[in-house]
């Protein structure tokens, strides 16, 4: 077959060439969304690490481009938000707990930029979305597993501050324990700081001394005391089993990727993001789940827990959200 440039073929090629910019525009639209993370704490802090990991994995999948700052002080926070917005970030992720008013002011100044903030308040405007931390369903299930493992019937927990997100988590753990062991006794200690593992450890020792033999560790340091005294512990947010093998037998895991996927989809679709993204932390979206050591728990306990887990997923059972301060 000979290859000659006919008029038709020329026109066809020319049309294709002329439409090339259209295709590049298409390719541009599928470019990763530029995300800037502003972590108020070091990224290895358990809570931040979950978000950091989810954003890194989204970047790895080509969904987003991710840059971040960590340990940004409250006094510097609004400035960091503005800088990232000025640099062209399409989505600014952050934690506005200490700067609720200022963060909303910044968002109002940058209507083209989407903001997603861990917040104790509600969404604001079209571009300020919020999310809460919800791994209470996993904590409930971990409580069900823990109930059968206690010899003393006393369950401890160590928390940072009694903010709603911490209270509802500890209360959900207790409800899970009570589901199996209605006469369980509970102890709780707040240490009044997020970053003092030696103090969390001392609070845990105090509870073990008072008879607790299962500790729910909202704070890192709790399981260290459990390990030293050979009792069991449950981790929260991240997987503590590799760090404390034989001590931590279950974790109330929190997964942030569903939230990332949801807001990035909204940003790509050009939808307003000024809404509450908390629901994506729920189990039915894969936002939290219990992770446990099958060898440490009896088959019956696992079966009962799995039945409840299925019920949570299909919506036939809801774990009560109780934000009152646990005593």
């Amino acid at each position, binding site marked *: 077959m000979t290859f000659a440039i006919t008029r038709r073929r020329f026109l066809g090629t020319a049309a294709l060439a002329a439409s090339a910019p259209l295709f590049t525009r298409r390719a541009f639209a599928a470019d990763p969304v530029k995300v800037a993370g502003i972590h108020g704490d*070091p990224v290895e802090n358990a809570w931040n690490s*979950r978000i950091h990991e989810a954003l890194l994995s989204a970047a790895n999948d080509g969904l987003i481009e991710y840059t971040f700052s960590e*340990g940004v002080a409250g006094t510097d926070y609004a400035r960091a938000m503005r800088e990232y917005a000025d640099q062209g970030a399409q989505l600014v992720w952050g934690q506005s707990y200490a700067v609720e008013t200022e963060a909303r002011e910044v968002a109002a100044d940058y209507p083209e930029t989407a903001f997603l903030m861990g917040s104790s308040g509600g969404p604001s405007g079209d571009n300020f979305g919020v999310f809460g931390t919800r791994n209470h369903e996993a904590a409930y299930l971990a409580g069900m597993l823990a109930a059968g493992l206690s010899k003393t019937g006393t369950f401890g927990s160590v928390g940072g501050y009694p903010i709603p997100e911490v209270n509802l988590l500890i209360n959900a753990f207790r409800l899970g324990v009570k589901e199996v062991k209605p006469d369980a006794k509970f102890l709780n200690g*707040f240490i*009044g700081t997020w*970053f003092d593992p030696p103090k969390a450890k*001392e609070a845990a020792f105090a509870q073990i*001394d008072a008879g607790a033999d299962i500790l729910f560790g909202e704070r*890192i340091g709790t399981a260290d005391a459990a390990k030293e005294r050979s009792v069991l512990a449950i981790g929260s947010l991240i997987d503590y089993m590799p760090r404390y093998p034989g001590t931590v037998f279950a974790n109330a895991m929190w997964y942030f990727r569903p939230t990332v996927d949801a807001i990035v989809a909204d940003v790509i679709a050009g939808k307003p993001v000024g809404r509450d993204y908390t629901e994506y932390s729920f189990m039915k979206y894969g936002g939290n789940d219990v992770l446990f050591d099958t060898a440490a728990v009896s088959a019956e306990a696992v079966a009962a827990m799995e039945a409840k887990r299925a019920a949570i997923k299909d919506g036939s059972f809801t774990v009560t959200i109780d934000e009152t301060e646990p*005593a």
Partner: protein
Amino acid sequence: MTEALDILTQASLWAAVLRIATPLIFGTLGALLCERAGVLNLGIEGIMTLGAMVGWLSVYWGADLWTGLLCAALAGAIAGLLHAALTVPLGLSQHVSGLGITLLASSLTYYVYRLVVEQGSSPPTITPFQPLAIPGLSDIPFLGPALFAQTTPTYLAIALIAVTAYVLARTPLGLAVRMVGENPHAAEAQGIDPTRVRIGAVVAGSALMAVGGAYLTTSAFNSFFPTMIQGRGWVCIALVVFASWRPGRALAGALLFALFDAYQLRLQHVVGALVPYQLFLMVPYVMSIAALVVMARRARVPQALMQPYRRGER
């Protein structure tokens, strides 16, 4: 109510008191040494952070625990040398320099830690000091488990109190330190070089502060967090005043503070349903302030504290 009092009879409470007090003892002793020589060292919070990181990192990189503490002390000494250089020969404001050291040391610590340690979901660990039961003594009922089953740095802290008290009160070196803190001109007239003595005291004191920080990462816990000192340095500064600049009372102050802390953690379980937990957290600080008010009336401040010494100047 009896339950609340019962806590005081538990050996485990008193063991916790010693554990909580240990970093405070090191820090208070360090601050006391600086101040007895006439130099206020507000770099303590940063120096403790630095010590916590250096001590931990040395062990993480393969050094044994004692070498880790030594490295921490060395890092603290270097930070102390900087503070001393600014405040003693140059005679700059001790407040400003000290706060500067705190900012510099804590930021530098964070920076170095981030550069050299791999990020993970939770920080890497080392094998910390294990409790060492002293043979014979640890078998005594109550007192044994309460006092004689601690990690070695705790015993070291208590021994250092005795050593410092002896050196300050009974040796020519101690006399020189006290003299430059009270009246450096008189010290000079006696043939003592106030500049050298002050620098030496600040360097040694800062090394002790750093060991206090390192205790947190090599004994009380097994990982480093950039923000884990949590104001313990400032507590030490207050304890020095509480102690009227005396080592023995510094020990008492640190133990008292730790007792309130250990007690409140246990009290939360007993009366937690009735009393908000914030009140318990306040207790150690409120009690310290109250004690300070009583003690400070009789406090004997080193006369030349915070006064730069310039030779020949009256």
